[in-house]
């Protein structure tokens, strides 16, 4: 079949053709960008923390009338309180290990700073977040040590949380080690935190995500350093690993046990995000709730868009089929087979959708560019665009099938009837 008669016929429905093409173009532009946003969010949500996240929970509590934590005597007092809590938690049935930690990945409580190769370097070599914890932290979190050694009890010091001293040794994540020492010889090297705090790398863990999920830490999402310090402050955080399946039971018991051991504290019983005792699954869920929501929202909008556009094609093609009832009858009477009529409408739709998709690709790239210049958005990779193009063409064909089949069922006898 030649395209000529189709093109001639299209010229007689200019407005309708332009409208369908425009609709397909706009749909493609929006769907591509929306799906790209979904893809980015899904990728973000799926990022591993480096922790073994099952059977893990965090306790966050505040002392009431706590000593200031600024003088040696009060630091000793705070540390005694903290060690007592750690012992209390360890005694709970179902607990595998307990560690003191200043923060965890995804909790958005962060201490970060520059890391340099030389003291008082003008511009830091890279940036990192700093974790502080005791010798139980690595096994409790399930971090994978890939070089050097872990901390032992003798390495651990305790100091006030505003104390700016740094212990002589540190464990870093592999990405931090690599950005400081690209040749892979980080072990045993001395680095400087915040320009002046000197420390030596004694171990490297495969992966430990930043405690921050905000844009503040973008660019150094996996740069982490663990300092062998139990921080003493008016608050404390503990990480608890339980035996498989015992997480909920231990979480419930932990609150009562801590209050029984020392009632002068606050463990928030907020039913939501501020609860003092949260499983890591909850922490993860909270950290990515906005991303998940955005992905769902974009997904819903995409579905509506595709539905509306498909329905629009069905509607307009049905109208054309009705309009050309007689012509179809004439063609059938002159010997055209059913399949020829079906193909006619399919090719017609292919042409219109093709034009729409061409315009749509330009619009999609333009929209992506505009979003990049106004919001935190990266360039859309080509596969998104190609998938979008194929999807739109397929959608057009699927939508046109029902009216086209109806057209192909028009009997030849229609040609002989007057209206």
């Amino acid at each position: 079949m030649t395209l000529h008669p189709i093109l001639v016929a299209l010229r007689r429905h200019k407005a309708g053709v332009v409208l369908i093409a425009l609709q397909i173009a706009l749909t493609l532009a929006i769907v591509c960008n929306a799906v790209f946003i979904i893809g980015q969010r899904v990728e973000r949500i799926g990022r591993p923390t480096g922790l073994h996240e099952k059977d893990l929970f965090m306790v966050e509590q505040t002392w009431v009338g706590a000593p200031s934590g600024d003088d040696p005597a009060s630091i000793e007092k705070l540390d005694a309180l903290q060690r007592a809590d750690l012992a209390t938690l360890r005694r709970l049935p179902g607990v595998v290990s307990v560690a003191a930690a200043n923060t965890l990945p995804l909790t958005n409580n962060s201490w970060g700073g520059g890391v340099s190769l030389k003291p008082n370097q003008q511009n830091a070599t890279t940036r990192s977040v700093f974790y502080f914890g005791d010798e139980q932290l690595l096994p409790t979190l399930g971090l994978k040590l890939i070089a050097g050694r872990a901390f032992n009890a003798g390495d651990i010091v305790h100091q006030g949380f505003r104390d700016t001293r740094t212990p002589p040794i540190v464990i870093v994540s592999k990405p931090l080690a690599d950005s400081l020492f690209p040749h892979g010889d980080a072990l045993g090297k001395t680095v400087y935190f915040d320009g002046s705090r000197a420390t030596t790398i004694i171990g490297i863990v495969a992966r430990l995500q930043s405690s921050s999920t905000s844009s503040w830490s973008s660019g150094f999402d996996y740069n982490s350093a663990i300092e062998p310090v139990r921080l003493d402050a008016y608050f404390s955080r503990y990480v608890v690993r339980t035996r498989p399946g015992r997480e909920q039971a231990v979480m419930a018991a932990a609150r009562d046990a801590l209050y029984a051991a020392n009632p002068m504290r606050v463990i928030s019983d907020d039913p939501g995000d501020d609860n003092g005792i949260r499983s890591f699954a909850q922490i993860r869920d909270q950290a990515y709730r906005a991303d998940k929501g955005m992905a769902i929202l974009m997904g819903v909008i995409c579905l509506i868009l595709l539905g509306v556009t498909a329905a629009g094609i069905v509607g307009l093609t049905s109208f054309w089929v009705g309009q050309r009832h007689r012509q179809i009858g004439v063609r059938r009477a002159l010997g055209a087979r059913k399949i020829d009529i079906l193909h006619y409408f399919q090719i017609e739709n292919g042409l219109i959708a093709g034009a729409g998709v061409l315009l749509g690709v330009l619009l999609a790239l333009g929209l992506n560019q505009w979003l990049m210049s106004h919001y935190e958005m990266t360039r859309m990779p080509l596969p998104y665009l190609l998938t979008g193009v194929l999807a739109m063409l397929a959608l057009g064909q699927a939508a046109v099938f029902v009216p086209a089949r109806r057209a192909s069922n028009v009997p030849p006898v229609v040609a002989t009837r007057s209206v």
Partner: protein
Amino acid sequence: MFAYYLELALRSLKRSPGLTALMVLSIGFGVAASMTTYAVFRGVSGDPIPWKSSKLFVPQLQIFAPGRKGSDAEPQDALDYADAMALQRDHRATLQSAMYMISPSVIPRGAGRHPINVTGHAVYGEFFPMLDVPFAYGSGWGADADSQRAAVAVISGKLNRKVFGGGNSVGKTLNIEGRDYRVVGVLGDWNPQPRFYDVVNTGGFNSGSEDLFLPFQTAIAAGMGNNGNTNCDAVPKESGFVGLQQSTCIWIAYLAELDGVAAVQRYKQYLDHYARDQQTAGRFAWAPNNRLRDLPAWLDDQHVVPSDTKVSLLVALGLLIVCLVNTVGLLLAKFLRRSGEIGVRRALGAPRSSIYAQFLTEAGMIGAAGGVLGLLLTGVGVASVGLVMPKSIAALARLDVSLLLVTLLVAVLATLLAGLYPTFRASRVQPAWQLKSN
């Protein structure tokens, strides 16, 4: 005549229920998606203190050495202790207050009750009149309470109910971190979103509440630490809270009320003068680089409105446009299918304006139906926004009369707009040609 057109429209719509339903659905969904995202956007981008925002200013100073960490061309978004205290001491604005975030624990009376953590701010007494903070009982404190570091407190209605069981608690004592404070004021219903007075530490939107306000110097003297962000460009020389106060770390928010252009100009000059003095004194080794933004400009600069809500609104508006293009196509098909009817009406003497009236009535009817569907869907959308957006933001999306009216209006206007071209085409139908072909 309008009644007649309505009847004609109704009859025509009934004749092709599928197409009609398609158009109504498409308008309904398009409008609902736009309105739901708009409700969220309206919630987060509203002016938290519209009657006064243009008089409230945030002074910024270049405290970190320029060209290093945390500083591009913009000066820092918070103040260190020394500079905040200098601005407070010089007292050049009508009203002003330095503030920082605190989170002490309060010990309720009565046996068996666990202590609770409350968040709030340490502020100066002028904070309350400056922000027109509503009081249910009592009031804020005066300048003498600030200078004497008085142990007084202003608490929220929520904390009042929690600790004292509600009622007028002015004069009662509240145990904060083991020390007694006299309650001088209980706030009325006050939970501004965003927390415009301290967006740096609260991140703008906050589902928690502000339950406690203490005099700034009282909190400092009590060693009540900063619960917000602390940003340093150098390690403090001394450790501890006192070390923080002596450092150049920034952790204090500041707000000043300036009435009139002249006052703003004078305050700008004062800031420049102050920064130059610091340069002369050797504290700053760089030329003054100050900003004095009013509140709307400050909220904009701090990107308080989450970009997700803007992007969602944009995408939803795109959906509405596609729905409209769709409606244009379907209306065109629908109207031109009735060329014969149009031809007869025209041949019988109906002017083009009648054709316009008839078909725009029909379009308007579809718009109204789409609007009603859109209203229902917007209701569902706003109610379920909490499922996809953070609680603090979702809570701000509200369905009110103005939103309902806007939804209906958008639906009808948009459909009329979509109906314009098809109607134009319908009015161009040649009666002679139609009659002949029949």
